[in-house]
């Protein structure tokens, strides 16, 4: 076994249970796992931001500008330096299998939401070709759910290249192809300002969807 992130050999722990059970396969070594910061106690109850108590400032702002669009966001890990490096390698360099390292935690994080329709964030054709895969589809597949396509996207700049202000004022890059009568879960890799998921959620709500929440790996 080797760590998918740092390629170091992982030595399986030998305990009494290894006598009667096969060794659990680990994807990530303990050093890498320790650098990844899990969100144990969500600070903000609406968006899982770690460093605030009760509703965070962003969420209060959202309540004012677009109330009732998104029912809540769940995340698994904090977006720290290690996570930034991870996203850079996984998404931008295109190292697809890195996601296996987080698969287990993603599945755990999605336990209550398996009944919902897992909707992925579409990429423009151009970007999907360049990257070779759709990151949000990959997450849904890693969680063992069926990705549902409800949206289309016009080609636009990467969100991560923009300043916060530009992001907030950007027009909606998505168009709804189909509405859903069932509750929907939007899955993405990072929740930064919440702009992307709210763009999608507002369209869904306008189309008559009963409830829209979101799930991201990093917050």
């Amino acid at each position, binding site marked *: 076994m080797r760590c998918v992130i740092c390629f170091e050999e992982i030595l399986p722990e030998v305990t009494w249970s290894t006598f009667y059970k096969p060794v659990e396969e680990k994807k990530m070594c303990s050093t890498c796992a320790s650098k990844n910061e899990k969100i144990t106690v969500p600070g903000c109850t609406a968006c899982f931001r770690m460093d605030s108590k009760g509703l965070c400032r962003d969420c209060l702002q959202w309540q004012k500008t677009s109330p009732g669009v998104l029912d809540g966001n769940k995340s698994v890990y904090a977006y720290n330096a290690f996570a930034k490096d991870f996203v850079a390698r996984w998404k931008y360099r295109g190292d697809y299998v890195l996601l296996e390292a987080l698969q287990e935690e993603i599945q755990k994080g999605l336990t209550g939401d398996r009944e919902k329709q897992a909707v992925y964030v579409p990429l423009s054709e151009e970007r999907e070709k360049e990257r*070779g895969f759709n990151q949000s589809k990959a997450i849904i597949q890693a969680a063992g759910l069926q990705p549902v396509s409800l949206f289309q996207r016009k080609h636009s700049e990467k969100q991560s290249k923009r300043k916060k202000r530009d992001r907030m004022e950007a027009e909606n890059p998505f168009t709804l192809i189909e509405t859903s009568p069932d509750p929907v879960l939007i899955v993405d890799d990072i929740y930064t300002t919440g702009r992307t998921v709210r763009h999608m959620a507002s369209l869904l709500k306008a189309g008559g969807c009963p409830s829209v929440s979101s799930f991201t790996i990093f917050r």
Partner: protein
Amino acid sequence: MISSIRSYFPQRLSWIPTSRPPHEYFELAGKLLLKHEIPLSEEQISHLVSTSVLTKVDSFERHYFGPRCRRCGNQQAHFFATMPHASCGRDCTYCRYCIQMGRVLACEPIYIGSSNVKWPAPAHPCAWEGTLTPAQEMAADELVTLVQSGGGERLVWAVCGAGKTEMLFPAITKALQQGKRICLATPRTDVVRELLPRMKTAFPQVGVQALYGDSPDKRGNAPFLLATTHQLYRFAHAFDVMIIDEVDAFPFHNDPSLHFVSQRAAKPEAAVIYLTATPRKKQKRKIRYKKLPVTFIPRRFHGHPLPVPQLKLTPTLHRSLKKGELPTRILKSIAEQNLTHRQLLLFLPSIKKAEEIARFLLEEGYDVKAVHAEDTDRAEKIAAFRKKEYRMLVTTTILERGVTFPSVDVFVIDAGHAVFDEAALVQIAGRAGRSHEDPSGNVIFYHIGKTDEMLDAVDAILYMNRLGEKG
């Protein structure tokens, strides 16, 4: 079965096209690129492919046990993975070893550019006006013959501060006059950064270019390139003269893929020159069995012997380091050293320790800065130290080689640590006494018990000094 095993071992380069039609795309000459790395439009690319200026080649080859990446030579199974590829709709294998340089996928070919372009052949490219010492001249002559005859390898084993760079000038001049293409590759970015201005002033008419991880100019279309060995992932049969500086340095010496790419980057008929001050065991063995011709220069360019390290036992060293401090004994010698005109280089075994000690010394009131691999403004700090803007530099093994400061003393703290092997210690000791004006310097290894590596390093230095006296 034997043939299947054999398929695993040789790294044949027969897939590189042998026909090299002439063309004028300098930025494609001898390149090995992914499609999106080619700075041309779709039509232009397909036109160049039809005229076989560019050749499409499968990115992986199969051997019995699995694939082999043709860009980096990797064939270890755990560095390959598959992904559902959106463009081709199938599960595609990709190489994780060289993914830092862009992803190589099984379904996407790599493009190899013909190396047959006409490089300018200036009559007098060299503007350097210094003179070589007799020892340097002898070595330089041997290298010129090698370049002229073309083909073959030679190792130049010269002590730290022998003037390896200057020794190369006649050979480089010769090659440029003949319209040949040269690459000087080294594992260290700092070395490339330091060499660039020196080469630019020595060869002003030739467009010397530097290629490294975040270099401003990435075109790589000059007849004379300075590059980190990692940049050679993008070249195939490109160079007539290949010079590899610091062959024994990390990461080159223990990364088989870098050996593979540097071999591939040179043309089959190229002259390959290796430079080092501290050959590894493998190279020494080759020298002993006369498999690798060698030029040995045991004397520095200024004729003075190498400073011999003093080993000083400091039993309280680890205890103090744990607290992020230095023992009083070392502090005292630092205080004494501060009264001299020389600057001070302090080597520590790890980045964390280097930062802690720099902070500690700052609190003690010294004029000090720390430089290490994760430092973003490392180049500026090194330049400032060279200009004598501050007195003391705390660093890790990244500055062990290739950098020159005119007049420094060198202290190694915890020289028994595993990162300081023989080669590293010899190189570190070689930082002292590198100029005409100040040909000596104090080198002190502080330790809590002598290690074999330290003793071997001292022996190696003494041995070279002995040889230097004779010659």
